[in-house]
């Protein structure tokens, strides 16, 4: 079983797509010689040349908008925005152009492009390089939002994203880049809107995303020692969201915790909680709980940042709160 890191899995997907389809090309800051800030695109410049691996000026609106124009005219660009924090400087291109063109033009024209970026705190990079506001993009109709939690999913979901005719926000997680896992060498796709049950359990459903999946699995092991069986569901894509799998699990366990690294207020937590409240209220035996980042900017000082990041202890604490309803 061949293992790759999450970063290598993404790179392999990019490379295989560029081999398969000459319309696919990459644009971003420092993705060429430098190999990308997290080395995801390392080696691709040598392999595909500067015409298909384009190092751009520091102009997020410029190159993300250029990708929109290229996608509308027959190409399939994949752009890298170095940190999700930097999407704020090209928000018009994402929200008003990329997401709306197909609808606004009554179905005339498509924008088949992928915007890769990453979330996650924990590197001491402070408030402008550590945010996790991916839920924002889920709020925009017209975008698809992908949240891979492991190398296998990263490759398969990116393949699907590049093949899709819609704009996709492909949200990676910094803490996952170095994690390893089995990744098939052959090209494969993973359908959007299909959640994966990472662990089965009967007492509490934890819907977790990105690195929160691993944190939830560790928390589940701890809880199992106390006889509480947790089911961990990884939605894998946030739009479309696999409502069916989530609801099925909630109906089975009657209890729901949503764990996502974004700030809790108006986060993806709230959306999934609303889903359960709207469609499974009769099955709920406990209040729904949210585990996420506090409503503060990401602090720099290591002890503060540690408090900021939601981890397995926060999930265990939520389980403790739920204990009286078990």
């Amino acid at each position, binding site marked *: 079983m061949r293992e790759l890191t999450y970063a290598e899995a993404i790179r392999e997907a990019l490379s295989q797509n560029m081999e398969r389809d000459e319309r696919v*090309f990459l644009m971003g800051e420092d993705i060429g010689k430098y190999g990308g800030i997290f080395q995801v695109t390392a080696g691709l410049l040598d392999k595909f040349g500067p*015409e298909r691996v*384009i190092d*751009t*000026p520091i*102009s997020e*609106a*410029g*190159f*993300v*908008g*250029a*990708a*929109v*124009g*290229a*996608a*509308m*005219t*027959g*190409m399939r*660009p994949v752009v890298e925005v170095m940190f999700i924090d930097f999407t704020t400087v090209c928000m*018009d*291109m994402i929200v*008003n*152009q990329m997401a709306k*063109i*197909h*609808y*606004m*033009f*009554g*179905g*005339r*024209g*498509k*924008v*088949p492009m992928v915007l890769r970026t990453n979330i996650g705190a924990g590197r001491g990079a402070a408030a402008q390089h550590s945010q996790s506001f991916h839920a924002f993009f889920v709020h925009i*109709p*017209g975008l*698809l939002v992908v949240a891979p939690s492991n190398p296998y999913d990263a490759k398969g979901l990116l393949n699907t994203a590049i093949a899709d*005719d*819609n704009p996709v926000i492909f949200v990676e997680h910094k803490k996952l880049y170095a994690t390893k896992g089995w990744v098939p060498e052959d090209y494969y796709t993973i359908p959007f809107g299909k959640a994966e049950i990472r662990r089965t359990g009967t007492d509490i459903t934890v819907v977790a995303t990105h690195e929160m999946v691993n944190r939830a699995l560790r928390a589940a092991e701890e809880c199992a020692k106390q006889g509480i069986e947790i089911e961990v569901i990884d939605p894998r894509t946030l739009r479309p969201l696999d409502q069916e799998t989530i609801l099925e699990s909630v109906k089975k366990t009657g209890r729901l915790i949503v764990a996502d690294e974004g700030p809790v207020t108006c986060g993806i937590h709230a959306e999934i909680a609303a889903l359960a409240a709207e469609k499974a209220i009769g099955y709920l035996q406990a209040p729904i709980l949210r585990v996420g980042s506090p409503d503060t900017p990401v602090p720099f000082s290591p002890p503060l940042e540690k408090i900021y990041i939601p981890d397995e202890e926060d999930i265990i604490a939520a389980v403790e709160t739920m204990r009286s309803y078990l």
Partner: protein
Amino acid sequence: MNISKAQLMSLYTTMVKIRLFEERVQDLYSRGLVPGLAHLYIGQEGVAAGVCANLLPGDYITSTHRGHGHVIAKGADLRYMMAELFGKATGYCKGKGGSMHIADIEMGILGANGIAGGGIPIAVGAALSSKMRRSGQVTVCFFGDGASNNGVFHEGLNLASVHKLPVVFVCENNFYGISVSQRQHQAIEDVSIRAIAYGMPGATVDGNDVLEVFEASAKAIQRARAGEGPTLLECKTYRWRGHHEGDPNQGRRYRTMEEIKAWMEKCPIRRLEEKILKGRVASKKTLEEVWDEVNREIDAAVQFATESPFPPPDAIYENVYA
């Protein structure tokens, strides 16, 4: 200048088409028959007509909130345009885009755009795409003096210049960003001098002289097609109406009637008409027939739009995703 009689007549007809279309929209809007916002192009016809006359069918344009003129000059069908303005299912965007979002990708119209400067990076991307596909297509990017102060102007022109992309940036300087005059919004007179900062040629022409626009844009478009890179072409012009049809008294809150009248004296259509008559390219009667013919075409467009159905309720959920 090397321009045929047929080309002169074509420029004339395009300008008349834009003028009469916009005047009809003005009338329909005032009677409450056209919903939403209408930013009219009256007075600026020389720019769209002069530039687009140099484009091939496969070439691209990106347009603006004041986009009717550009898309008419690129060849859009007036019936589908009018139907779109009415919000009808038969419109270019099935009634879901309206005046500010008319697009026809097959015709190379990558969309009008409701965001000032929004089309600039998109045009750069279309040019990048045609360069990568070695298709020989050129992209023309229309925007106003107002958008030239937006960040995407800088990002787009820089990117196009670095990659020597086949794109022509056409700045229609009508001296106002909504109500703020050029004197208040930038400390330069000619937007085209900004070209120096991007290492590309820049030129300023009289946008109300369609032949001057035609000639200057021909050069820029040829340059782009030859792979020599982008150009910034500034066309000085003036909108006769207010920013949009809800802007009271043609924008006299921020400009004088004298100023408006002085620019109306420089009407691009009348100026070409004088040249056509003086050069005996066509008779007065032939020119009158052009107006009559265009009016009939617009009548048919209004009839088509009026008789077309509104989109069914379910259409709201269609086309969110491809």
